[in-house]
């Protein structure tokens, strides 16, 4: 039995309210396919029964499971490859040169899902920038789903997952076989931290980032949510930092705050110098004296 109109509308509203993600009309079959396993897990005969229970009960673990099921967690190591080539060849060399005196580097994998993107960044640093080995490196992975974050934190991936996008040379170097699975080595894992964050709500206590990857998420948001995310992004992106979005995404229609740089078919964004906002001085990781990311320095440059 397919989801009825009222049931599907309730599901769309529920997902939008709690994650800001918009499920397009006509996706009833997809929704039912994703909810089926959750219903079975809960001992319920169908997705319809699951939705009925959601409506009757206050928000708890079951609601979280449904949100997880309805969120697209597609990811892979070095996804799309070219953005990582641009990071390796253009963005990271520049950022690392700029950070040579402070020896600090901060990168954010927003909507990190099961962590492959964050670990790919860590592997890139270890593999191609050995001069940063004794730097203070922080790679933050955030996601709305605590289920995927637990998976990411564990750093253990199936053979199918490591097959996807990860050169076998890097698999051999940075992973240990663990039965049929592959465990990322501690040397990489210690560079990455994962924490929950709902991008559509207020962003709390994030540091300034040199590089932010926010790939393939904005397309699921309504314009108002996209604007909220990009306004918030201005406050946590270092004035000379970089923002990478997914291939089909663009911020060009959302105002002049970001300038666009296109290289090798990869589009990335930087804050426009003339329009830099007041930098969030309440960040939790203060820079050392004289460090170029201090609030006063930023504002003076603007």
């Amino acid at each position: 039995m397919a989801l009825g109109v009222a049931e599907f509308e309730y599901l769309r509203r529920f997902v939008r309210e709690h994650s800001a993600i918009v499920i397009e009309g006509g996706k009833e079959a997809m929704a039912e396919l994703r909810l089926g396993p959750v219903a079975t897990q809960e001992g319920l005969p169908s997705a319809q029964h699951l939705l009925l229970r959601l409506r009757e009960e206050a928000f708890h673990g079951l609601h979280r499971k449904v949100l997880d099921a309805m969120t697209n967690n597609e990811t892979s190591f070095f996804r799309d490859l070219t953005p990582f080539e641009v990071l390796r060849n253009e963005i990271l060399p520049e950022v690392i040169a700029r950070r040579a005196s402070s020896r600090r580097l901060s990168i954010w994998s927003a909507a990190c899902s099961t962590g492959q993107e964050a670990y790919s960044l860590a592997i890139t640093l270890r593999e191609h920038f050995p001069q940063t080995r004794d730097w203070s490196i922080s790679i933050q992975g955030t996601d709305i789903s605590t289920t995927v974050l637990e998976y990411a934190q564990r750093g253990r991936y199936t053979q199918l997952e490591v097959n996807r996008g990860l050169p076998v040379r890097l698999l051999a170097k940075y992973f240990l076989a663990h039965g049929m699975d592959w465990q990322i080595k501690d040397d990489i894992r210690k560079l990455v931290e994962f924490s929950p964050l709902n991008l559509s709500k207020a962003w709390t206590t994030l540091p300034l980032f040199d590089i932010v990857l926010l790939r393939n998420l904005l397309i699921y948001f309504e314009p108002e949510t996209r604007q909220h995310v990009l306004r918030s992004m201005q406050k946590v992106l270092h004035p000379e930092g970089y923002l990478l979005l997914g291939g089909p995404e663009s911020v060009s229609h959302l105002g002049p705050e970001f300038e666009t740089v296109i290289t090798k078919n990869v589009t990335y964004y930087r804050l426009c110098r003339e329009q830099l906002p007041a930098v969030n001085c309440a960040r939790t990781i203060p820079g050392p004296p004289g460090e170029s990311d201090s609030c006063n320095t930023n504002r003076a440059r603007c």
Partner: protein
Amino acid sequence: MKALVADDSNLIRHFLRKLLEPEGIEVTEAVDGMEALQTLQTGGPLDLALLDWKMPGMDGYDLLQIIRADHKFDDMQVMMVTTETDMALVNQAMDSGANEYIMKPFSKDVVLEKLRLLHLDQPHPKRSE
């Protein structure tokens, strides 16, 4: 672009052909290492060889060593497609000149992403001249 698929499994050869041809890759099949070697020696130049490790007669690893000892095949990339997941064997293959390695079981996405890693989704600089 041309590729050789050497695997004693009909299923795997068929799967790889169905996957590579829509990518514009012309596929030649071989059922074991010896047939693959004959194809390599008598046919025209190839861009890619996908070799199963365990095949009757000459296995994929022996064939890899023969390929890498012959400069005629320097421009050809070799991808091992195998159930062997022992890291010692993976390293052995890579040290012997394999360019990539796919562990079975695999999916369509895995193969396409490996092709991208080898830049085989782009025209070969020599062949496109």
